């Protein structure tokens, strides 16, 4: 998809977003609340056929962020969906694995290391942490004492 077409198609999603950032290096960030995240990702993957690259989970001070990185390989543009999870006590967000199977491992990983729950994930077993790791200790959180 050409860049112009990509940008105009992305603008269809504006109602679900709380902001858009575009850098001069061909990177687009779509900011949204956690509830809208899987809808936006489904649109990018199924309608725009963007390639899923990976996700990043971040412990920001006042919230958790889940970033789903997608790539439009025709133009080298990276489209990142940045979802904010405001509830720090029981962080939860919709899983994208049901329609992007490639996200299965990384969502399990984020669940392990940050304690974010992915709703509707088909297989939420541990991936990174060993079986006898204590419950409720999340090594990638900023307040983790390891």
């Amino acid at each position: 998809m050409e860049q112009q077409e990509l940008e105009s198609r992305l603008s269809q999603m504006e109602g679900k977003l709380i902001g858009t950032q575009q850098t001069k290096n061909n990177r687009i960030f779509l900011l949204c609340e956690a509830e809208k995240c899987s809808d936006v990702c489904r649109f990018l993957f199924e309608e725009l056929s963007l390639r899923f690259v990976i996700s990043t989970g971040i412990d920001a001070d006042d919230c958790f962020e889940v970033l789903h990185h997608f790539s439009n390989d025709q133009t080298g543009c990276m489209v990142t969906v940045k979802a904010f999870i405001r509830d720090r006590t029981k962080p939860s967000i919709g899983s994208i694995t049901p329609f992007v199977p490639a996200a299965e491992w990384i969502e399990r990983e984020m669940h392990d290391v940050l304690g974010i729950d992915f709703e509707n994930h088909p297989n939420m077993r541990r991936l990174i942490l060993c079986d006898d790791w204590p419950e409720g200790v999340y090594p990638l959180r900023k307040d983790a004492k390891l």
Partner: protein
Amino acid sequence: MSETVKKPILAVGPFHPLQEEMEFFQLTVDGEKVTDIDVRLSYNHRGIEKLSETLQFDQIPYLVSRICGICSASHPLAYVQAVEEIAGVKPPERALYVRTIINELERIHSHLLWVGLGGHFIGYDTVFMWAWKYREPVLDLLEEITGNRNNYGNVKIGGCREDIPEGIEPKILKELDTIEKKTEMLTKAILDDPVLHARLKGVGVLSKKDAVRYAVTGPTARGSGVDIDVRRDDPYAAYADLDWKVITQDAGDVFAKAVVRLLETFESIKIVRQAVKKLPKGPITTEVKQIPPGEGCGRAEAPRGETFHYVRSDGGNRPVRHKIRAPSYVNVPSFKASCIGADIADVTLTLAAVDPCYSCTERLAVVDDHNNVIHNHEALLRLSREKTAKIMKETGAPGLKLEDI
């Protein structure tokens, strides 16, 4: 009386030394057929992402080059590109060319390594020995250029740490000619061999649809007809200035992946040759004083596929988050699509075809808990080789001899 049907599970793992990580494949089997596959990993998680948050920006390239010995050029490159994106730095032209040369030499030696291992798995040990012999001079070149055969440590934010030694260009070009000739012979021997056609075609097929669903990258994707390559799609280093093409094959089987890797080796040789000839004069580094707050994505095409690094800075001297995705992280789950329905003898090869060097491990064991049979590394190799021998016998083909190549 309640009765549960126990499905036999072949446990492959959990130790996997050649891949520098432990992996545990649990194959559910029905006779010789694999009906399901489950992967467990992270037995030796090194916590590099967390470690990276404790290091300064300029220390991290040396950390990430240790993620993988074979991809020790592409990880630091993807990282520094992410940081350069945040800082808005453009390295000097010469540095971009030096980065290109080192990364392509890395691809040549990695692909030759894979060809050798692939040959070993199916019982073509001549291919194994020759491929690794031709790989040796590439490592020697890398040693002369960077000081190390692996873990080059030559890339830094804003450029390169060391320049290419003066006067080495003719030697690189001469070695490339030799490597090209030898690789040509090897490729011809492999692609013209009727036994290999029979052994590798139609094995471990990953359809284009599944390749997209599992978001695989690199030769695994290109072997399934997915035309992606970060070097062309999101150009970095000096790739946009050079003349080369992306190799794709449509079949999606092991043979297609082998063809992609072999032909890519020639493209890499072409790239290095041009880069050495066009190598611009000038400095190899620019000074970067501070990394401002911001976020950046860096990508590099490693031999196994796209390496992706995401870095976020808050203006301090350390990143607040550094996400790393190595290509095998998305390539390995595609086994769910390519191994189910296959024979155990073929699974060895299919898993190897995405290049996680699967079979060469001493502690790899297959346990059939139904019948209490244990297959070890030798037994798995034997299964794969017996199938090759059977095909040889059926087609009446002579074995590959040393003098054939």
